[in-house]
């Protein structure tokens, strides 16, 4: 079983559309994250939830809205998609946010906005 799974793997859409990416982890971790990786492969934190509570909310357009229905799921909804949103979005989880613990990454969602 995949530990951190994201769907879809690929998403191609037109500018102005609204889309969602889903993430689920079966590791029993308390903390989940969304990272954005741009074309130059730079991984930047966007959001983090700890036990369904938002703990990191970086400077991200408010068109991006995370939702965590329970601690095993963290979804990312994007409104009014723009060309610059094209990137790979990675979901990750860790056992507990404030400790020295590694992140486990999903396989990424490649978003292409046309």
């Amino acid at each position, binding site marked *: 079983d995949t530990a*951190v799974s994201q769907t879809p793997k690929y998403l191609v859409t037109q500018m102005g559309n609204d889309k969602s990416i889903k993430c689920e982890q079966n590791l029993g971790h308390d*903390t989940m*994250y969304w*990272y954005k990786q741009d074309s*130059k*492969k*730079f*991984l*930047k*934190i966007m959001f*983090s939830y*700890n036990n369904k509570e938002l*703990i*990191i909310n970086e400077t991200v357009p408010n068109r991006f809205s995370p939702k965590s229905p329970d601690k095993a799921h963290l979804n990312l909804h994007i409104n009014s998609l723009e060309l610059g949103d094209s990137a790979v979005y*990675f979901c990750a989880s860790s056992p507990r*946010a*404030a400790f*020295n613990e*590694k*992140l*486990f*990454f*999903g*396989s*990424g969602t490649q978003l292409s906005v046309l």
Partner: protein
Amino acid sequence: EDKVVQSPLSLVVHEGDTVTLNCSYEVTNFRSLLWYKQEKKAPTFLFMLTSSGIEKKSGRLSSILDKKELFSILNITATQTGDSAIYLCAVKNAGYALNFGKGTSLLVTP
């Protein structure tokens, strides 16, 4: 603002060569430094370093941290084509997230 700087940004070597990848950082309330390898998809964990001077080793890969000079190196000996990947350095402070550098893209040619 925390900074993580990796060098070189890219590197091409021949199979069998030894490579050293560098990561320097400026972080408030440093907790740990992690190395990840990214091939096609998800970054996969290599090492976590919290103490200076203690080498972590896994096969042909090794890494060490210098908390006084604020850097870490990742060594790969006897490189193979399967080592071709992006190597990411990340630092954890007292907050909740890992802050990543821009990565070193390594290509090992036959």
